[in-house]
Structure formats: C-alpha cells, structure tokens
C-alpha cells in the first residue's frame, strides 16, 4: 500500500557529508530549517516527558521527615536510594509486580494467539465479508478503557449479567469477581480491548504476502492450514514482533481497568498493580518521594523489557 518503510534514499543517507557545498544547495534542507521544524516537538517533549522524569528522579532521592512527635515543619533530606529500597521491599509493590507477571502470562498468549488465529481465518481463501469483519473486530478499540471496564464490570455482576445467568441455567455458578477469578476477568477485558486492533495489523501483513508463493504451495499440495503455518506465519514475523513489543509495554500501563473494577469488588486492592501502588502512594499515603521512586522503577522496567523484546525478536529474524 502507501506505506513503505522509511528506507527511502533520503532516510538512508548517513549524517551529512563534510563536503563544502554551494550555499544555495544548503538552504532549505540544512540544520537551521530542520531546527525550525523540530523545535515545537522537542520543546513539548522536554516539558512533558524529559523534565518530569528528571524531576521525579530528583524527588526520589529525598524524603520528608517529621521531627519528633510529628509537629512542626517537615524537613526534606537527602536519603540516597532509601526510597527505592523501601518500594522494592514493600510486599504490596512486589506483590503487584508478581500479579502483573501472572497477568502477562495469561494475557499475551491469549491476545496475540487470538489475534493471530483471527487474522489467519480472515485471510483464509474461504473467508467472506472481510471488510465487515474488520470493522466489527475493531469496534472494541473505539471504546475507551474506562467504558470497557465498566461494561465488563456489569457483565461480571450477578443479577445484571447475561453471562452469569446463562451459566447459572447451565448449572455453573461462577463468581467472576472473587479472588481466584479476578485476574482472568481483568485479562479478558484487556483481550477484548486489544485483540481486534492487532487483528487488523496482522491481517494487513498477511495481505502483503505474495499470492504467487501461496499458489505455488497449493500446487505442491499444501492445504490451507499447512500454508498458514509454514508460509504465512514466518513471513509476518516482523509484524508479530512489533505487536509483542507494544503489548509488553502496554501491560506495564495496566491501571484503568483494575481501578474501575476495584469499585465493584474488594478483590482488587488499592495497590493491586505497580501503577496503582504509585497512585496510592501519592494520593492516599501522601508520600510523593516514594511515588516518584515507584514511577522511575516502572519506567526502568519498561526500558529493560522493551530492550529485551527487541533483542529477542531481532535475533529471531536473523
């Protein structure tokens, strides 16, 4: 389609050659003009991303200490890595990380596997009405996370939920909001929100697979399923690894869904995942320094994870 990779000549050109050029040729494509176009973005970037992270880092090395009985002014003092140690030693924080890991273990295979299966089905020669399916499958992505969590919270609530009542007529009584089921229940919300989005990405990648190769495979006697596994799948690995990367980063963002669900059930505590822990530290425990340290830890985890995923997927490609 329209969107080729940025490997056009201009993007591939190495940093400017130091050959003196005629000034006329320089004008309009040089550093000054570029600065003009880039300044707005980098100004916003500095204000909305760099400065807050640096300020949070600074805050995370300090602590407010009340003297004696807690009367009088709180004193701010440098405590080094003390806040980080406290966050990492907090059982609620590490419990949140454990929960998040478990969540990934459920969520990533379900969502990516589901998206892959659905995309392959849509790409199968016998599939009909692809455009309509694409639209319907993408529908949940137009629903904000808050609303998705609200809808599902009602769909999990006995008395309101059609799912619970259908299960009950079948003789199964399942409480989606109890301690055992709450994690899969939240995984399901995220799967619902994100599968369709990734189906579209994978389906587009599948449509770009040259039809001659598939035709050749068919002549050689490969069935649809065989062709899907040994031809289509390897060819869409790049798209799959991009999806993995963004999915892993996305799971660290988990906040909206459990915060909404926490109002419907006691199974979700106020420190259920690391982001909620940081929020709770700032607004309920009023310990901004610890909240800052927790935010930095979350950002670092994201950096390490995305580095690991890119490393892993680029090794796979080679």
């Amino acid at each position, binding site marked *: *389609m*329209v*969107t080729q990779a*940025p490997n*056009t000549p201009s*993007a591939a*050109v190495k940093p*400017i050659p130091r050959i003196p050029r005629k000034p006329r040729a320089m004008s*309009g*494509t*040089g550093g000054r003009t*570029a*600065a003009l176009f*880039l300044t707005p*973005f*980098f100004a916003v*970037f500095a*204000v*909305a*991303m760099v400065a*807050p*992270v640096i*300020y*949070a880092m600074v*805050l995370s090395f300090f602590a407010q200490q009340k003297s004696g009985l807690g009367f009088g002014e709180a004193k701010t003092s440098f405590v080094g890595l003390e806040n980080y140690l406290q966050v990492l030693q907090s059982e609620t924080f590490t419990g949140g990380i454990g929960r998040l890991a478990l969540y990934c273990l459920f969520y990533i295979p379900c969502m990516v596997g589901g998206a892959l299966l*659905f995309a392959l089905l849509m790409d*199968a020669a*016998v*599939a*009909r009405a*692809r455009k309509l399916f694409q*639209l*319907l499958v*993408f*529908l*949940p*992505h*137009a629903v*904000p*996370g808050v609303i998705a969590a*609200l809808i599902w*919270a*009602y*769909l999990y609530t006995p*008395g309101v939920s059609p799912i619970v009542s259908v299960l009950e007529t079948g003789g199964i009584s399942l409480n989606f909001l109890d301690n055992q089921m709450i994690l899969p229940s939240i995984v399901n919300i995220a799967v619902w929100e994100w599968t369709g989005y990734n189906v579209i*990405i994978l389906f*587009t990648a599948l449509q770009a697979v040259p039809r001659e190769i598939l035709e050749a495979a068919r002549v050689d006697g490969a069935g*649809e399923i065989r062709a899907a596994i040994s031809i289509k799948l390897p060819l869409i690995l790049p798209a799959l690894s*991009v*999806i993995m990367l963004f999915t892993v980063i*996305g799971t*660290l963002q988990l906040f909206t869904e459990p*915060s909404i669900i926490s*109002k419907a059930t006691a199974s979700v505590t106020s420190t259920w995942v690391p982001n909620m822990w940081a929020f709770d530290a700032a607004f309920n425990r009023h310990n901004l320094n610890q909240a*800052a340290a927790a935010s930095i830890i*979350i*950002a670092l985890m*994201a*950096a390490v994870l*995305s580095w690991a995923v890119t490393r892993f997927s680029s090794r796979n490609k080679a």
Partner: protein
Amino acid sequence: MSTSTVSRTPTVAPALPPKRRRSAARSGGFGSTFTVNALLILGCAYMVLPVVWLFFASTKNTADLYGTAAYALGEPAFLENIMAVLNQDGGVFLRWMANSMFYAAFGAILGGLISVMAGYAFDKFQFRGKDSFFGIVLVGVLIPNTATVLPMYLLASVFGITNTMWAILIPVLCNPFGVYLARVYSAAYVPAETLEAARVDGAGPIRSFFSLGLPMMMPGYVTIALFQFVGVWNNFMLPLVMLQDQQLLPVSVGISIWQGYSVPQPEFTPMVITGSLLSIIPLLVAFIMLQRFWKSGLTAGSVK
C-alpha cells in the same frame, strides 16, 4: 442470541479481487467454508455483544436492569435515562463531553501538526545528529504513558498548574509515535523532486511545507490526528491525577465518579450505563467514517 446482530454477514458481498475468489471456490469445500466463517462470526460476536448489551441496558430503569432478561427491552426508559444523564448536577455531563471533545481535538489538531512537522523534517532534511534525535523520539515511543503521569503531576504542582486545563493541554501535544508515523508518511507521499522544483522556483522551506508537503501528507495527518484524538479521549490516569474541579473533567473520569456513587446508590447505575453509551457514540461514528485512515495508520506503524 448472537444471531440477531451478525447473521447478516454472509449476505454482504465479499470485496475480493476476482482472482482470489476463483481460487476460493476451487479450494474450499463447504465444510471448511462453514468452519472458517462460523469461527469468524463467533469472534465478532465476542467483540460486538458487550457493546450491544450496553445499548439494551441503557433502555432500562434500575428495577428492569436487575429484573429482566439482558437482551430484552425493558419498560422503555431510554429517553428518561438520557434526560437523567443530561440533567444531573445542572448538566455537568454535557460539560464533560465538551471538555473531552476540546482536549482531544486540541491534541489531535495541534499535536498532530507538531508531529507531522517533526516527521517531515526527519525525512526530508539533512542535519547533524539526525540519528540520535530520532533515537530520542523512539525512546519516547517506548516509555509507557502511565509511568510519566505521576512525574508530570509532581512537576505540574511545582508550577501550580494542576487542576487547570494546561495540565491536560500541554501533555496531549506530545506524541512521539506520531513523529515516527509522519516520517513514514512523508517518505511515502512527498517526492523529493517536487520539493526540489519548489525550491528552484524560489519557495522557502516553510512555504513549500505548508503549500506542498502538508497537503500531500494530509491522509497521514488525518491518521495521526485520529489516533491522537482517540488516545486523549480514552486517557484516564492523566486527568484523574491532574484535575479535581468537576467542571474541568473529561467524560471518562466523570463517568467513573458516577460509578463510584452507584455503589451505595443503585439509582445511579442507569445513568452510568446511559452515559457510557452516549460517550462512545462520537468515537464509533468517527471510526466508521474514517476507516480508511485508521487502517493505513496501523499498517504504517507495523510494517517495517
């Protein structure tokens, strides 16, 4: 229960090139055609039914919500529910919707333009340190949003702009992924020869961006703006952290407050449900109208 919503699918003519349709007829027996399409319909039912439920639920009053079958229309209370949503707290819901619309449109239009300009510069201009600057943009793409929300709040409270519109309007301008997309679009849509011709004719770089580059990249701009719009509209943690004044809240946070009320006061439940339905209508309409754009955006972001 699923058939009512999706059984129409087989009657819609598949938009396939003739070549593929022929091979489909050849290779697929009735069995596999049935299995594949049945699985697709099942998957779509999972995607669509929760939203359909929301619609049915919004037609019921509190008693019917707990008392009637889920996909049955209750004592029709749809209009009553809408009036209740609109009249609560002196029409604060409309204010929330307007706020969401304003924040999202601001981020989409201005933030989109900022991203497009940067992406265009990365694609079309040569300058020292280009790779490192683009590396910074990519790092920005990989930092999870929620990890920067609290730091932003801490910094904003230093400047005393928490609980003001600025606390939302400044962050929504920053869209590193938009820069990445814009670079891809610029490479695909704007031929270097056109810009060269404009330069020869005496147009400066700014003039040629606004009168040539930007119009050529318009589909890309619309796509980036659309994604930014959705991102801002859906954002929950940022406004939750930054804003306390009810008059400034976007609709996502507003509805979550009503949900909090509905735990002790069940009469709020129909309002939460109806409000949710009303709040997703603008996005659903935008997505259906702008299908072509979001599809191309998803493609550009992933095909490397």
